[in-house]
């Protein structure tokens, strides 16, 4: 129903450049996520697609139609705001109906449309309440219903779950995934929460500092980060970075294991470190160690045991990510091999053993 294409979008507020030439192509029907730390420009980009902000230069297309300078109402999009932005003086029903009323849609048709959507988001019994009388989750649903009722080409969502508590957030996440499947409409969802991004998105766009750092499926982004920023931004705890000369060697905590766990028969390297802290989370444990190359987190199955103070960490060559001085991924296999070989020497000198 609606593809979104953004070409060379730049945006400055006064002297400050917020977006520095963004290109995005979101295929029709995908659940796309704009992910990045706060202040990276993701919300500004979303607002520009919505028409609430004008770009300094560049073009925006919805369904291959140039809408860069169209009014928000002419773009056929539904938007859900972070703090819901429901009209406080109107009932749930009126909130949802408002846009249709302005569009001068025939009354009987309008009532029918609103009632259907209210039923869909399970708010029938609250239809005559005002937003102030509803819980956070219910308000969120009204905000969704208000967007859905317009049957837009695409949905834009600006951190819509960030005001909900953890349990409700999980539940709403599932509901949004189901909703997207049901509506088969493009969703563009802004968040700074990488877990939300990984669990919901079919396509993730990672932004930092007004630039796009990487675009791709969650799997691509997780397994094949294009740069140091993405490697560190995705994953919890973040990817461990060992500094070695001009290079940074990244290994995800879940790709490392404590040697005594015995899960590391295929491990290529062993690193020695001192355990600083242990967190048993139930299903898994997170160990924090200091090594000669910096602090390292190891995520492993929960053993409920405190490891030895002096422990050894095992990891495999295939899980090693190497980045150059600028933070770009190094894919030159020979260079990586050499680097690792050098590190093995260093390792050896620092009492780490090659398996």
């Amino acid at each position: 129903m609606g593809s979104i294409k953004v070409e060379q979008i730049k945006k400055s507020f006064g002297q400050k450049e917020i977006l520095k030439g963004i290109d995005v192509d979101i295929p029709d029907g995908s659940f796309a996520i704009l992910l990045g730390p706060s202040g990276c420009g993701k919300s500004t980009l979303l607002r520009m697609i919505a028409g609430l902000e004008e770009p300094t230069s560049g073009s925006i297309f919805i369904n291959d139609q140039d809408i860069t300078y169209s009014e928000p109402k002419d773009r056929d999009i539904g938007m859900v705001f972070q703090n819901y932005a429901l009209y406080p003086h109107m009932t749930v029903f009126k909130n949802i109906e408002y846009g249709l009323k302005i569009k001068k849609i025939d009354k009987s048709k309008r009532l029918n449309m609103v009632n259907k959507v209210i039923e869909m988001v399970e708010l029938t019994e609250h239809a005559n309440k005002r937003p102030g009388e509803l819980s956070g989750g219910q308000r969120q649903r009204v905000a969704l219903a208000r967007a859905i009722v317009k049957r837009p080409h695409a949905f834009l969502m600006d951190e819509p779950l960030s005001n909900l508590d953890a349990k409700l957030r999980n539940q709403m996440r599932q509901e949004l995934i189901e909703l997207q499947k049901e509506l088969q409409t493009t969703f563009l969802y802004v968040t700074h929460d990488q877990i939300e991004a990984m669990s919901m998105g079919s396509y993730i766009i990672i932004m930092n500092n007004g630039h796009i750092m990487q675009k791709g499926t969650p799997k691509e982004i997780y397994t094949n980060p294009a740069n140091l920023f993405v490697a560190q931004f995705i994953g919890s705890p973040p990817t461990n970075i060992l500094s070695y000369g001009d290079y940074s060697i990244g290994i995800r905590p879940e790709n490392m294991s404590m040697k005594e766990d015995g899960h590391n028969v295929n491990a290529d390297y062993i690193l020695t470190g001192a355990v600083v802290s242990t967190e048993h989370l139930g299903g898994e444990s997170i160990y924090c160690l200091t090594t000669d190359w910096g602090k390292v987190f190891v995520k492993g199955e929960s053993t409920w045991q405190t490891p030895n103070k002096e422990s050894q960490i095992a990891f495999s060559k295939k899980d090693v990510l190497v980045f150059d001085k600028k933070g770009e991924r190094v894919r030159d296999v020979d260079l990586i091999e050499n680097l690792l070989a050098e590190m093995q020497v260093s390792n050896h000198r620092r009492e780490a053993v090659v398996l």
Partner: protein
Amino acid sequence: MKRIKSITVLQHFLLIMMSIIAIFPLYWMIISSFKNESEIFTSSFIPQAPTWQNYLYAFAEMPIIQMLFNSFVVATLMTILQLATSLLAGYALVRWNFKGKLLIFTLLSLTWLIPFQAVMIPNYVLINQIGLNENPLGIVLPFAASTFAILSIYQSFKSFPTALIDAARLDGESDLGILFRIILPNIRSTVVSLGIILFINAWNEYLWPMLVTKEMENAPIQIGLKSFVNSDVNMWGSLMAATTISCIPILLIYLFLQKHIVDSFVRFGIK
């Protein structure tokens, strides 16, 4: 414990004293309006021989009902115009970015510093030339926009959540629609409070209406009061009676909108 108690007593004493200072002139006005000529300069706190004579004389001497009506029309018109202009100006200043916005805003703020007396003569000449003297419009027009009102509305618009306005824009609402259907219903109490302050100010306006109107029939009540004081004789009793009458509408507003009035004074300060 004892210290806290004595502080409370002191606080109450001060508050009571201040209340007396505030209320006493009103009390004196009312009792004087019931005193007869011989008693008016005595310091008795209760009239010895209460009389309606002053009221009867005041009603006979000037068209009080007509003048009250004039006052009401002028004050209402002024309030409505000032609210309308400040809502529109406040919206434009907060929502739109246009060239010269800062200049306009600065000029607006500066006009607040110019005393009315400085612009009184040019205003008078203009109103005279248009031929609006002896006309309520002549009293109202120079006060159709109030900087105080614009800046007050500007402040409350500034703190209005932008997301609501964004949502309305996505719903396809126009600027006027956003102002009157989205913002206004949500800042109603602010606007009511501001309206009350503007109304009271307009009601108390004296100098300008006196310049524009010469005929009693066209003047607001405040001008009529002056006629009891002249170079020959001061009719204090009748003056007090007429003044008491002129206060009645405002006192009624106080009675019915007490909560709003206290709120407006807290919100906008006592002007």
